[in-house]
């Protein structure tokens, strides 16, 4: 098919637009000077400053706890829900309900959760953020696992049931192994989504604790700080690696399914 040359202009413009800020951020993280705008020489000093920043470290620990907790919760609930929706009901209403947290504006979900925790007098903190993050992560896990389920052969599950296995045995011995790549991809998605999430955590964490995005947000509000460049570079490294591993996983899974 013909590829008009003119189309390369918006394509490259898009890529430059997407990567220019990232390149500048990474470059400035190795700046030896105090300025956030002019590069004065190579140094790792901002990484050192960062390593000594206790607020950042506390925020990082909280973020990892939240991401791990909500990922486990969302992966278990989301996988069960995906199988239930695909194999045990034809209700379109339930489908819509399962997708709702992913479609709803995060701000509306955030204030709703804040009001709910207030009503039942649930103490705000890391636990309430874990529960909140699992809400939308679950929707994404369910969606990813469902895509995988449509590719899986239901006759294998029928065969298992015909041979006398109950729904739980069939799920554990037949469905789950088939779904594994989808579940891993969903879990990685849930983990990265939680690492990055700001609005819901901002509303549901209360005053005593902070996640990393909230720490960064308040640091920026007090002005530009070069150590944020170093932090950003590290976070970039982590999330890019997670995305690439996820991509590899699904590709390996697909290759295996085709064997």
């Amino acid at each position, binding site marked *: 098919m013909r590829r008009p040359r003119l189309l390369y202009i918006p394509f490259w413009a898009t890529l430059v637009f997407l990567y220019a*800020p990232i390149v500048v951020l990474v470059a400035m993280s190795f700046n030896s000077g105090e300025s956030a705008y002019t590069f004065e020489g190579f140094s790792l000093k901002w990484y050192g400053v960062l390593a000594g920043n206790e607020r950042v470290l506390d925020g990082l620990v909280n973020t990892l706890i939240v991401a791990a907790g909500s990922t486990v919760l969302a992966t278990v609930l989301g996988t069960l*829900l995906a199988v*239930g929706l695909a194999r045990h009901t034809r209700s379109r209403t339930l489908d819509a*309900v399962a997708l709702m947290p992913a479609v709803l*504006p995060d701000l509306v979900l955030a204030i709703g959760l804040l009001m709910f925790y207030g009503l039942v007098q649930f103490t705000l903190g890391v636990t309430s953020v874990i529960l909140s993050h699992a*809400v939308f992560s679950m929707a994404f896990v369910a969606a990813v696992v469902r895509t995988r389920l449509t590719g899986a052969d239901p006759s294998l599950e029928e065969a298992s049931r015909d041979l006398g296995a109950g729904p739980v045995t069939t799920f554990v011995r037949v469905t789950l192994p088939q779904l594994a790549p989808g579940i891993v991809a969903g879990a990685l998605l849930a983990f990265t989504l939680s690492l990055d999430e700001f609005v819901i955590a901002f509303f549901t964490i209360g005053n005593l604790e902070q996640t990393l995005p909230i720490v960064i947000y308040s640091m920026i509000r007090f002005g530009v700080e070069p150590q944020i460049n170093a932090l950003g570079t590290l976070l970039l490294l982590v999330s890019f690696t997670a995305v690439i591993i996820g991509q590899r996983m699904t590709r390996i899974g697909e290759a295996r399914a085709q064997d």
Partner: protein
Amino acid sequence: MKAQPAARPVSTSRGRHRLGAFVFLAPGLTYLLVLVLVPLALVLSFTFFQRGRFGGVIYEFTTENFARLVDPLYLGVVGTSLKIAALATLIALVLGYPTAYLIAQLPRKWKTAALIAIVLPFWTNFIIRMYAWIILLNGPGLVNSGFELFGLGPYELLYNQGAIVVGLLYSYLPLMVLPLYAAIEKLDPQLREASANLGASGFTTFRRVTLPLTLPGVLTGSMFVFVPSFANFVIPEMLGGGKTLMVGNLIRNEFLKARDWPFGSTLAMALVAVLLLLLLAQAWAARRA
């Protein structure tokens, strides 16, 4: 009664099926009921309550929250939000359509690489990405240094509505490119060849064949960019310097500063209503396309 061998397995399998449905559906749906539907019902119910004098709520029925919605002050904020979100969506479309079109024509290997390249920045911390733009757009920042080379500027690029649009565009552009790519990819290339064979110019083919057939993708992508842009409150604060209020800022302020939860809830529900209307309009337009 004589057992009917044929009927027995059917009934047990049905019983099992119902048990299976319960085992799989109950945990997730209960979770969603408690932590999505109940909170939403709370927000909805608060729209009818009164605000306490020192924050808090008086549980008495009122419709005054809705009356306050049409205050010109708030309508102005809605207008600004609409304008900014629409501008971000439009630029995303103008930049995203040709990009998606080109990616769809690339050889398979490059296609995947290009798609990953488009989505990758999306996976880094949102606050960090906005911070990177503060560095770029600031007075002595790189963009102004670029202008200086041509003897221009420096310009005040940060803390205005333009900076908000840039931030929104940066945050949600991949959400425009992906559905467009999916729609263009699905398109049968023979249709375009037929149009060209019948003597249509490249532009006519695009206007009469490609664009109408990819319209559902255009609508989906536009919704994906518009919805989070319209409700955003972080970008107007970080890149807009807090000078421009959008609906999201208003809701945040009512909840965390003014502590007027009933009116904050009413604004949130109005937001959801606007988005629902847009979704319905989109579904209607997609059916017609």
